[in-house]
Each structure stands twice: as C-alpha cells, then as structure tokens.
C-alpha cells in the first residue's frame, strides 16, 4: 500500500529540486533509457531511513561531479509501481532492492548499487562509489 503522497512529496523533491527527473510510468522510463540517449543515472528512491540518510544526499553530491551522466532520473519504490517495475526490467537479473541506484549506457545497465551498499554508510562514502562509476562510464575516453 502506498504511503500518503503528502508524506512522500518532500522525499521526491529532495532529488527533483537538484535537477533529477521524476519518472512516473513505464513509458517515461523507456523514453529516459532510450539507447540513443547517452548515459543515464537512476535513483530508486524509497521512504526508508537509509534513503534519507544516505541514498538521496549521496546521489545529490555525486551529481555535482565533473563527469556526471547525460541525464539523471528517479522512480519511487512502493509509490510509482509501474515505473519501478519497468526500471527493474531494464536492470535484467539484478534482484529488486530500494533504495538503490543504476547507471545505464546506451540503454544497458553498466553499474548497480544495491541497498546493502547504502545501509549505514554516510553520504560522502556513497557519493564516492557513484562518482567512481561516473568516472568509469561517463568520462570522455582518451582516444
């Protein structure tokens, strides 16, 4: 059962106020993960404490990095069920968890940060993991 929207809205805005695009249905997810769309970072948001204490502030920190992906989006677990299911479909064999984060390159999953790598960790440490993924997959090649 979804939480009351008035309770969840501030949790959504914590990301959208920093330029992260909210994806509310399957069509929006598919469009966002278009193979022609470059690199795409998705935060699977949730109401739990580790989303508030680690995932959201860690993602916001990481998105300030030099090699941030082409676009960043978010879906909300337990609230926007269709969008979350579609995002997980794009993640292939990765088990569902929230909060979690995924990085796609040309529509294909190239990196995933599951919930257990967010639990109990501070935002700076989480951001470092994310930035390392950005450096690996989003930075221009030296060729």
């Amino acid at each position, binding site marked *: 059962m979804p939480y009351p929207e008035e309770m969840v809205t501030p949790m959504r805005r914590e990301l959208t106020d920093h330029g992260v695009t909210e994806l509310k249905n399957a069509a929006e997810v598919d469009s966002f993960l278009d193979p022609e769309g470059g690199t795409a970072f998705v935060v699977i948001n949730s109401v739990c404490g580790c989303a508030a204490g680690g995932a959201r502030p860690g993602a916001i920190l990481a998105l300030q990095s030099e090699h941030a992906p082409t676009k960043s989006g978010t879906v909300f677990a337990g609230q926007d069920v269709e969008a979350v299911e579609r995002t997980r479909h794009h993640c292939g064999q990765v088990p569902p*968890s929230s909060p979690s984060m995924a990085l796609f390159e040309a529509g294909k999953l190239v990196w995933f940060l599951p919930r257990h790598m967010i639990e109990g960790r501070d935002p700076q440490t989480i951001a470092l993991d994310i930035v390392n993924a950005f450096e690996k997959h989003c930075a221009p090649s030296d060729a």
Partner: protein
Amino acid sequence: MGTFHDHMGELHGITVVVSKHDGCTWIGRCHSEDAIEVILHDADLHDPALSEEDTDQWLQKAKQIGHWPRVSTIRIARPEVSNLVRLAEITPGQGGPDPA
C-alpha cells in the same frame, strides 16, 4: 550507524549474512538478533546441497548486485548460527559454517 530505529539494535534494517552450523546460509534484512534468535525479513537461503553455486560464489554475487527476497520472514534459532556479518562487509572465502 543503523537506521533511525536506534532502540532496535545496530543491525536493525541492515542486510546481513547468517551462516549456520549445518552449512546453510541466509541473507536478509535484520529485524532483530539476540541470544534466542535472529529474525530476518526479505530473505534468501543458500543450501550447498541443493545449489550449483558454492557458498562463496553465492555470497559474492549477492554482495555485488543484491539478493532475491524469496522469504518474507525467517526466524533462525541462535544456537544454529555460526556467524553473523553485514553483507557489505563479506570478503571472498568468508562464506561457510565456521569462518576463521
């Protein structure tokens, strides 16, 4: 640092690996643990007698991408537990009933 439910203990809400003396291993989100039992939510079980993967392979894959929440709640009697550790802290070779 656990969750905001500090009264529940430091592992409340944390994904843990519970190794058992019989060789089976559970991964799940810890609700509570004391001298009586460990209670996990959204858990998955590895039984080496039934799996093509050994315990270490199963744990390393779970550490990389997560585990499947196949069992809503499981209560594991504490005397059956040989080791309890956070999944995020598991290292290669640490799986199994009686890690060094």
